[in-house]
């Protein structure tokens, strides 16, 4: 892995920012890393679909909602710990994602972006209303002792559970890197992401790749759902706000830059935590989140124009 001078500068600047925040308010740094990692791990599958299929999945957040509810169902019906439910939930969502792709997304993959957006928006509405019909609008929670455990380093005390998102994000990234570089299907996926027409000409089954990538991305949301359940109240619209934030992170990191999503997620998470920690200014958190995003995109556009 090699970095350009420009990337090195960015990384050094970010590290300096993180160190300063860590000395100023270690709690803010920890909150930001945990929250930002969660944003990143949710954004990764959206970025994968956007990068390979070229489809912006507006139902992304609703698939996360479905994952949360299925995980809740395992907890409620079979007393299965949410972290253990990750395995069956991700398998169920893998199949569910595959079916959704074959029945709907596949039909518009060669259509314009507007049709794809309308389709995934329609799917999001159906999922949202379906969840309402089955589970009602009333929020549900699970209780696990470990979800709110804390640890101390000297006088600095912090919640530990949120670090699971960082762990999952790193594991997912490692898995994707290994998959893309070390397996034939992964290399085919990489090729399709680069040039689908060329990939088809050399005999790669592009549709199979699309099916696989879409299914895997929804399965990852099943993993995230199981991990989020112990600390999150679930209700039909719980996943919806994450669609926009995921898209923002994917845009900030740049198309196809999966590692950058974790990096961007943590920086934006810390930025949000800083705002939350300033009394009377917590309402500005979203403004800062999307403000930073706009500045990054404009800066990149300016650099590319030069």
């Amino acid at each position: 892995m090699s970095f350009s001078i420009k990337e090195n500068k960015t990384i050094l600047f970010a590290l300096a920012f993180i160190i300063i925040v860590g000395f100023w308010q270690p709690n803010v740094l920890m909150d930001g890393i945990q929250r930002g990692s969660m944003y990143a791990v949710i954004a990764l599958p959206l970025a994968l679909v956007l990068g390979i299929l070229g489809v912006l999945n507006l139902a992304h957040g609703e698939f996360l909602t479905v994952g949360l509810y299925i995980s809740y169902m395992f907890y409620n019906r079979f007393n299965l710990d949410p972290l253990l439910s990750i395995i069956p939930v991700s398998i169920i969502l893998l199949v569910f994602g595959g079916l959704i792709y074959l029945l709907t997304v596949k039909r518009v993959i060669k259509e314009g972006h507007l049709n794809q957006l309308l389709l995934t928006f329609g799917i999001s509405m159906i999922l949202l209303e379906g969840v309402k019909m089955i589970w009602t609008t009333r929020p549900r929670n699970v209780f696990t002792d470990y979800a709110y455990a804390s640890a101390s380093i000297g006088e600095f005390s912090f919640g530990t559970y949120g670090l699971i998102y960082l762990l999952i994000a790193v594991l997912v990234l490692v898995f994707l890197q290994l998959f893309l570089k070390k397996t034939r299907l992964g290399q085919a996926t990489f090729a399709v992401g680069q040039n689908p027409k060329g990939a088809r000409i050399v005999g790669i089954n592009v549709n199979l790749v699309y099916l696989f990538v879409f299914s895997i991305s929804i399965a990852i949301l099943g993993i995230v759902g199981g991990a989020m359940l112990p600390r999150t109240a679930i209700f039909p619209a719980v996943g919806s706000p994450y669609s926009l934030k995921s898209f923002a992170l994917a845009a900030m990191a740049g198309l196809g830059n999966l590692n950058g999503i974790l990096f961007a997620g943590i920086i934006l998470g810390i930025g949000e935590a800083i705002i939350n920690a300033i009394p009377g200014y917590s309402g500005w958190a979203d403004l800062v989140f999307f403000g930073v995003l706009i500045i990054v995109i404009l800066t990149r556009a300016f650099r590319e124009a030069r």
Partner: protein
Amino acid sequence: MKKKLLVSMVLILFLTLTAASVQAQDPIKIGAVNPLGDITGRQSTQAMELAVEQINENGGLLGRKVELVVVDSELRPEKGAGAIDKLATIDKVDFFVGGMSSGVHMAQIPTLKKYKKITVWAGAASHQAENAVGKDADWYFHLHPWDYQQGASYGRGWTQIAEKYPDLKVGKVFLAYEEGAFGSDSYKAYEQMFESAEDGEGPFKDIMDEFKGASFKSAAAGGGEYRAMLRQAKEYNPDLFIWAGYDADAIPMLGQAREVGFEPSLYVGAPPGWPKNFDSNPLSDGVILYGMWAPALNKVSEPAKEFWDAYVGKYQEKPATYFAPLGYTNIMYLAKAIEDAGTIEKAELIKSLKTTKYESPLGSTLEMSPSNVIQNQGFTEQKILQYQDGEQQVVWPFDVSTAELKFPFSW
């Protein structure tokens, strides 16, 4: 000629009597507007249907059956206003009942004023709705306490509780409020109460010494991160910690409070509803809430027990919020007033509604009195409740209390 005239007169008399007889057999129609997709609205409607069923089983009202026509407001103002129009013009109901949400009700009030039918409204707490109804609407009867009445009752409650428990301090208050209109309005209300208390006035005049607030983004709006706000609260070290957010915030906020080691003496939640199975979550023990009713009232109130048994017997589920017994009260109060009046003629029934007293399943008697603006206001007080060992208990008013207050709050 004379014979023809006589036959015509007999025929007219016969038709008139027949029509009157049919009219007498027509049901009394009550039009209800509730949000049916929401459990609160659904259960309130079920409780109304239960009340109507019981009334009809006992012979109806004035010898006529009672029919409840329900329209879903979907918690949307335009739907709520349209529902009133539909009930008045298509269903031709005699009375309006319902509903919930001040926002929806604000949109309904101009339509209600257009028809001026007798309206017995269960929900909506905003004083803005009261102002919109105005002082001249003698046909409008409102059951739920207005926001300022609720604030006053909390002040009375905490004053009396502080007198009863000398070891308990409630002077230092911290309000955590969600960033939206609901939370911001709550903050403004508490800020005003604190300013009044500083001037020696208002419901908190004898008890509130210090006040601070901090906002948070509700999980319902895509938030759910409360730790920064909770650390501010912990540093402030309040006697009374109150949060005004939504049901989705309840458990995560408690969990994160435990995570940061925040243990106020009193932990109060003031959301419009609570999440499913909140009472069975171990984190809920000791949490205080405000409400008009608790299941434990069954132990001290016969009407509360009768309602509970009938409701659970019919629907095989427990009422989740006070809107179920409030919906039941909504119908039963109107029915009692009709019986007392002996007619559904508007002027007579308004007189009757003004004087009728109904011992409700909410643990208090419903009777009308003027409030700040409107002529006919029903309940004026909320209760202070506490989750204890998985059950909601009434800790104030003391005359209907079902348990002693447990404090300090701890993990």
